[in-house]
């Protein structure tokens, strides 16, 4: 290895171990997150190069005592106006050792690390490796791994970081960050990377963050180089075949908090068991509900006097459900209407049980837009769809759907922790099953959440890779650290300090835990969506005729009042 040509940036000091060492950094030639090398001799391997990542840094000036600072403040002076010395500042960096390599390993295309079994020698020089060798070490750019370029090392733009696409699709990934931390951008980058290989993606989109992929499909094709790529936007619908409709309705009644008494349940189930109520061709759960309501109304007189007493409460509950579902459907339609005006085309959702290929197919990104739907209903839909897709995939029958990746936005709503008292979310068990069994069948999941502390721990622990961006909430930080074995205390402390798009990635999708800066692809950014510039939007609307409209409306209202008063 050409170790001598690399710049010496510091000297190892203090006690060292096989896990960590510290060094005094000369000047400001490296920063937290950087990869550094030092030479060491081991009893078994002889001379090795020890690779490590700077995890913390302390800066101090022993000739600048606190009381001096206090005197300067009191006198409203700056240091240069008085006396002192600022060249005695030094930087002490702590390095987490990643592993070591033998000298000859550098000639290989890809450098693989082995564990260090002997501590680094104090007083050794610490070197700053060049971009080429770092790329060899970090890129993991083996074609068979299906690399996805996610960004670069946090402080070195030229050192690219690649995720192993195959690892993502056989295991699972959690993307965790507070709002504004850059989750969506990071996920779009990962999805674009998977789309490059035509890998089918099923996105459950609560806020419409991924609708822009449809709008900018041409850009997406250009970025990925996949000309066959398509993006399908689906209108959500609660669907159930006549055989499952009874269970589905019971589930929804319960989940919407409209629980029935035991006697009501008995009467209700007697009605539901009657398969003739439900049209064999119909899959729309709402329509099934309406038919059920009509059927109960028509046949209530046939019931015995005790059962009759349960009919009215049952009907009330069905009415509430219908009203709620109708309301959600209308809200979703209104939201879709806004997007349609901007050129988006939504398709009606097919029955995932009967037509899973419409959801999952090569070169297709499917986005189910769940805007407007309550959590329980969304969860039910996600549960039904994923259950069906998994069943089909795991059936192993000929013609089954391809391996796919499901992307679940706002994952804390779909896989909530027990403490959230949402443990009965229908999707929880489904997603958990995908995470535990999916590896065998190629059904991977990407969970995205801004409140990791509210996620189901068992489910999250099944994720083999993590991308954690900015997280300020201490509860979330602690929780993340408890789930992620590879995250050090120093890394956890960094979570709150990350800027937008900066994050920590670990797990089997990368070679080492690293701090990364996520690549920002502005060609995929749909700025008409979610700019969150409400004050400016208001001003624009007000200044472009809104003011006159309001005046006119007020005048009309007054006129009407006058007329009404006269009546």
């Amino acid at each position, binding site marked *: 290895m050409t170790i001598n040509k690399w710049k010496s940036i510091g000297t190892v000091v203090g006690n060292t171990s096989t896990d960590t060492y510290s060094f005094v950094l000369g000047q400001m030639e490296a920063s937290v997150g950087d990869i550094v090398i030092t030479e060491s001799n081991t009893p078994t391997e002889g001379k090795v190069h020890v690779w490590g990542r700077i995890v913390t840094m302390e800066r101090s000036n*022993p*000739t600048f*005592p606190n*009381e*001096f600072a*206090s*005197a*300067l403040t*009191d*006198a*409203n*002076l700056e240091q*240069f*106006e*008085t*006396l*002192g*010395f*600022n*060249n*005695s500042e030094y930087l002490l960096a702590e390095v987490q050792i990643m592993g070591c390599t033998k000298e000859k390993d550098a000639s290989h295309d890809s450098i693989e690390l082995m564990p260090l079994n002997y501590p680094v020698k104090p007083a050794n020089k610490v070197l700053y490796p060049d971009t080429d060798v770092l790329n060899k070490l970090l890129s993991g750019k083996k074609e068979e791994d299906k690399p996805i370029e996610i960004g670069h090392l946090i402080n070195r733009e030229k050192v690219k970081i690649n995720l192993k696409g195959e690892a993502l699709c056989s295991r699972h990934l959690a993307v965790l960050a507070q709002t504004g931390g850059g989750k969506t951008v990071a996920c779009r980058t990962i999805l674009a990377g998977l789309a490059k290989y035509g890998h089918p993606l099923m996105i459950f989109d609560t806020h419409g963050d991924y609708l822009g992929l449809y709008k900018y499909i041409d850009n997406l094709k250009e970025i990925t180089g996949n000309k066959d790529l398509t993006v399908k936007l689906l209108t959500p619908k609660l669907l159930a075949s006549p055989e499952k409709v009874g269970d589905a309705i019971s589930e929804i009644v319960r989940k919407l908090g409209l629980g029935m008494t035991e006697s009501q349940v008995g009467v209700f189930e007697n009605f539901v068991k009657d398969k003739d109520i439900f049209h064999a061709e119909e899959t729309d759960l709402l329509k099934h509900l309406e038919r059920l309501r009509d059927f109960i109304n028509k046949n209530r007189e046939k019931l015995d006097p005790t059962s009759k007493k349960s009919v009215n409460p049952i009907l009330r509950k069905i009415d509430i459900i219908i009203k709620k579902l109708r309301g959600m459907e209308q809200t979703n339609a209104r939201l879709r209407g806004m997007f349609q005006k901007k050129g988006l085309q939504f398709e009606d959702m097919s029955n995932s049980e009967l037509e899973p290929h419409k959801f999952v197919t090569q070169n297709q990104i499917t986005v189910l837009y769940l805007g407007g739907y309550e959590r329980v209903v969304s969860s039910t839909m996600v549960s039904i769809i994923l259950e069906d897709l998994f069943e089909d995939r795991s059936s192993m029958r000929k013609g089954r759907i391809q391996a796919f990746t499901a992307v679940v936005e706002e994952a804390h709503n779909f896989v909530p922790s027990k403490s959230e008292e949402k443990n009965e979310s229908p999707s929880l068990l489904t997603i958990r099953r995908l995470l535990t069994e999916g590896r065998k069948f190629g059904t991977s999941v990407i969970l995205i959440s801004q409140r990791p502390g509210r996620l189901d721990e068992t489910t999250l622990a099944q994720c083999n890779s993590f991308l954690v961006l900015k997280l300020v909430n201490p509860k979330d930080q602690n929780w993340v650290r408890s789930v992620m074995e590879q995250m050090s205390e120093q890394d956890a402390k960094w979570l709150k300090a990350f800027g937008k798009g900066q994050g920590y990635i670990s797990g089997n999708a990368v070679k080492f835990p690293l701090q990364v800066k996520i690549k920002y692809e502005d060609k995929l950014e749909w700025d008409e969506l979610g700019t969150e510039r409400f004050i400016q939007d208001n001003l624009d609307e007000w200044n472009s005729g809104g003011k006159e409209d309001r005046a006119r409306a007020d005048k009309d209202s007054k006129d009407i009042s006058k007329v009404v008063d006269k009546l």
Partner: protein
Amino acid sequence: MSEIRKKIEARTQKNFFTEMMFLANTTGVDQKEYIKNIINLAELLEGYLRQRDLIRKVDFEPNKYWKSIATKKTVYNIDGGQLSLSIPGSASFGIRVGVLKNRPGDKSDNWCDFSESQTLTTNLVDRDNSHYEQQEEEFIMKYDKMLTGSRMIMEASEVIKQQLGKGKWDKPSTNDIIYLHGPIAYESTMYHLATDEENPIPPFKKEFCQTLFPDLNNVFFKDLKKKELDIEFRYFLPLYSEILKQIQASKIPTYGVVERIGGVVSPGPVTNAVLDELFHHQSNKTFGRLYELNWKKLDRTWDVKPVGTKSDGIKIEEKFKKRAVKDDIIFDLILDPGEYIKPVQVIKQLQKKWPQGKYSYQQLFTQLAEPFSTFLKVSEDKRPLRIETLNILDSYDEDMKLTFHSARLLPQYCFPLGLDTVDKLSKVPSWLRNSMRGNYINNLLRKTLESNASKQQINMVLKSFVSGRNWWVRPK
């Protein structure tokens, strides 16, 4: 023994705790009396000093002051650091003298700079590597004095170097200022000992002496040049005297600042000088300050009318002698923050201690540079600083202003920030000392083992160099 006798003996047996309690109570009474007497003395002296307008005051106006001198003044701070390895068989030490230069208010890189101007690494018992000339076979080391003496003359010679602009930077102007950490002049005879028949310190080597004087053509004591640093002039006393004389001759304001006042003499040298200046009570016939001043053809410093009779002066001096009242204690009580006394000449080189015999340097003695001292009170809860100079210049009061404001930059420590900083930069850290010592012992052990030494030889090395508490010799 009868029971009664036993009881009586038991009762008369001293109990450690009760004895300590008794001591605390009784000394408490004495302490109170002592403090009362000191306060009385302080009030008396303060009254006389204020009556004769001998106490001056600096107003604490940090913002205004520092802005007023912005880019107009360069401040040099000098201090030495030493590392000594006192190991049997070796007397290795190293000395380095550092200089911190500050130009307050200069936004450029010129604001501060540090220079490790002089360094010395030496081994006193190694003839080739020592900076002392060891010709006598019976040479016995006075390690501490040789080490301290070397450091003192190196620090003082650094002052000359800076005054003449022979270091890293150009010559300072008379508007600039040089501070030395410690006294500007030590009592030097104790580091000389050239004439100590039984235990002499050898002369310095010529090459070492040459490094002390930036300009040998311009020395004060002409014999030094004439005799080309002949052996007679390569002892501590003539070298140090020459250096002090050169410092005194400079027009660059130069001060030594002392933070910890040592000594047990009461009255202290500054109080003694102040009493003599106030009462004119000392005689030029008996040994004392006036006697020393006359020897050196110096006058009393303050031109003030005596505040009392000679007899008053003698009585007060006697009161000081009876009680341990050091200089810093009395001036701590007299002065308020920002105040300092008008500087007064203090005698450090005493005639009765001056060497006799082979090299007596009588000519030097009469021309010695003696310092002027003051005490500057920086804050209410800190003892005052002793500030010395060899030459009172017109800028004296202005210089005290800078000294005071520099010390107030460290409101708790109350010591000029520049000197505190250069002290940190120059001193040899303990980790270096420990590792050097460890390295030395390891090398010695390795060499002993490699030389196929006998078990007894190895044991001897271990016993000599490894402390009784070292892991080598601790029970396993």
